[in-house]
C-alpha cells in the first residue's frame, strides 16, 4: 500500500464545496505547500475548519484572501483583516468557537463520541442555541462533534506507513484532525522507511493517514 502521492494528486482530491480541516496555529504547523497549491487551483465554496485564519500572506490566511472559503469555523480571526472584511460584508460566514471547544469537537469527531459537556461559554454568546445540562450543580454546554471530508495536516517526519513525528509547537490541531476526516493527507518535511521511527516517539499512528505528500527535499 503506497501512501505517497504528488502535490497535484493531493490537490485533485479537494473539490469545490467540501468541508476541510486544516491543522496549524497562526500559520505554525499549517501544511503550507498543500495550501499554496489549493490557492493556485482556486478551489471554491469550502467550509474550512481551522483554529484561526492566520495572516493574509501566511498559511490558511491565503485561502481567505483568495475567497476560497464560504464558511469558516475557527476560534480566532483577528490577525487576518480580510476575514473580518468578508465576515462584515456577508461574503463569508464565520462561526467563532472557543479554542478548547473547537479542539474537543475535533477530538470527539475522531473518537466516535456524540458530543461532550463543557463549562466554557456558559453565560456568554457562545451558549446561544446550545442545550444546557447541569451535573452536580455545575452548568455545562452540550457541544457536538466535528468531522470533515478531508483533513490537510503537517508533520515533520513521517514513515511510509504514515506514522508521524512532530517538531515544536506544530502538533496543535494536526494530531486531532488526523482522526476526524474521511480522508487524511499529510505534508511532511521528510519521509523515512518503515522501522526508522522509534515507536515511542510517534504521536499520530499511521492508521489515520491515507496519503503522504513529500514537501521536503528527499
Amino acid at each position, binding site marked *: 500500500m503506497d501512501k505517497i502521492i504528488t502535490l497535484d494528486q493531493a490537490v485533485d482530491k479537494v473539490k469545490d464545496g467540501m468541508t476541510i480541516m486544516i491543522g496549524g*496555529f*497562526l*500559520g*505554525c*504547523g499549517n501544511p503550507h505547500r498543500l495550501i499554496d497549491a489549493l490557492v493556485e487551483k482556486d478551489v471554491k465554496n469550502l467550509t474550512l475548519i481551522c*483554529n*484561526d485564519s492566520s*495572516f493574509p500572506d501566511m498559511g490558511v490566511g491565503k485561502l481567505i484572501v483568495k475567497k476560497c472559503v464560504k464558511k469558516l469555523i*475557527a*476560534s*480566532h*480571526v*483577528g*490577525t487576518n483583516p480580510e476575514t*473580518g472584511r468578508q*465576515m462584515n460584508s456577508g461574503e463569508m460566514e464565520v462561526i*467563532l468557537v*472557543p*479554542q*478548547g*471547544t*473547537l*479542539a*474537543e469537537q*475535533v*477530538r470527539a469527531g475522531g473518537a466516535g463520541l456524540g458530543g461532550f459537556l*463543557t*463549562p*466554557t*461559554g*456558559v*453565560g*456568554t*454568546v*457562545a451558549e446561544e442555541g446550545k442545550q444546557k445540562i447541569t451535573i452536580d450543580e455545575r452548568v455545562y454546554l452540550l457541544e457536538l462533534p466535528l468531522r470533515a471530508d478531508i483533513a490537510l495536516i503537517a508533520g*515533520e517526519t513521517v514513515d511510509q506507513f504514515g506514522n508521524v513525528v*512532530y*517538531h*515544536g*509547537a*506544530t*502538533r*496543535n*490541531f*494536526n*494530531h*486531532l484532525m488526523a482522526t476526524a476526516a474521511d480522508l487524511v493527507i499529510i505534508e511532511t518535511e521528510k519521509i523515512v522507511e518503515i522501522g526508522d521511527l522509534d515507536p515511542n516517539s510517534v*504521536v499520530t499512528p499511521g492508521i489515520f493517514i491515507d496519503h503522504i505528500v513529500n514537501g521536503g527535499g528527499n
Partner: protein
Amino acid sequence: MDRNIIKEFIAKRVAKELKDGDVVNLGIGLPTMVANYVPEGMNVLFQSENGFIGLGPAPLESNEDPNIVNAGGQCVTVLPGGVFFDSAISFGIIRGGHVDVTVLGALEVDEKGNLANWMIPGKMVPGMGGAMDLVVGAKKVIIAMEHTAKGNHKILKECKLPLTAANEVNLIITEMGVIEVTQNGLFLMEINPNFTIEDVQKATEAELTISESLTKMEI
C-alpha cells in the same frame, strides 16, 4: 505617568502574585510582560495554549525556530524540562483546573467578576481564541490592565460588552491599586500611594469597599 511605566508597574505587581511551582498562562500584551518580573530563583512554569509548557524568553534572531512560537505567533524558546502537546491536551490542562493562574487584559470587568475582553460588536470581532476556556478553567483569574480607558470606566457595576465568562475574575490589578472580587462586591486591598481613595473610587464605576487591611501597593 508614562503608559509604558504604568504597564511595567502593573506587570511587576502581578508577578508578586505568582508562587513557586505555579503553572501560569499569560495573555497577549501587558500580561506577557509579567514573565519579565518573576523573582529570581522562583520556578514558574508558563503554559502556552498552542501546545506547550516551559515557555522561555524570545531567542536571538539567529536562533529563531518558526515552529516554536507562543500563542501570539511570536518566536519563543522552550526551557529545559519543557514539553509539547496537542490542542486537546492543552485545553484539558486549561479547562481541567491544572493552570494555577491566568493573567489577562480586559475591556470591561464588573463587580460580579464578569469579564468582557473579546469583542466590541460592530467594531472588533477577533474571536475569543482560548480566553473563554482560560477564564473558566484557571484556578485564579487576574485581570491586569490600566484602570480606565482614555478616562472611561472599565471597572463597572455590570459589563455592557459581550462576556468572555461570568463570575470568574478573582483579582484586578491596575496602576491605582489591587482589587479583590468577592461575593460581596469589590474590595480595595492595596492602593498606589500616588492616588487617594477618592481618586480610585472616581475612576471606578462599581462601588469599592475599602478593606480594613488596606495597604500600600508595592512592587
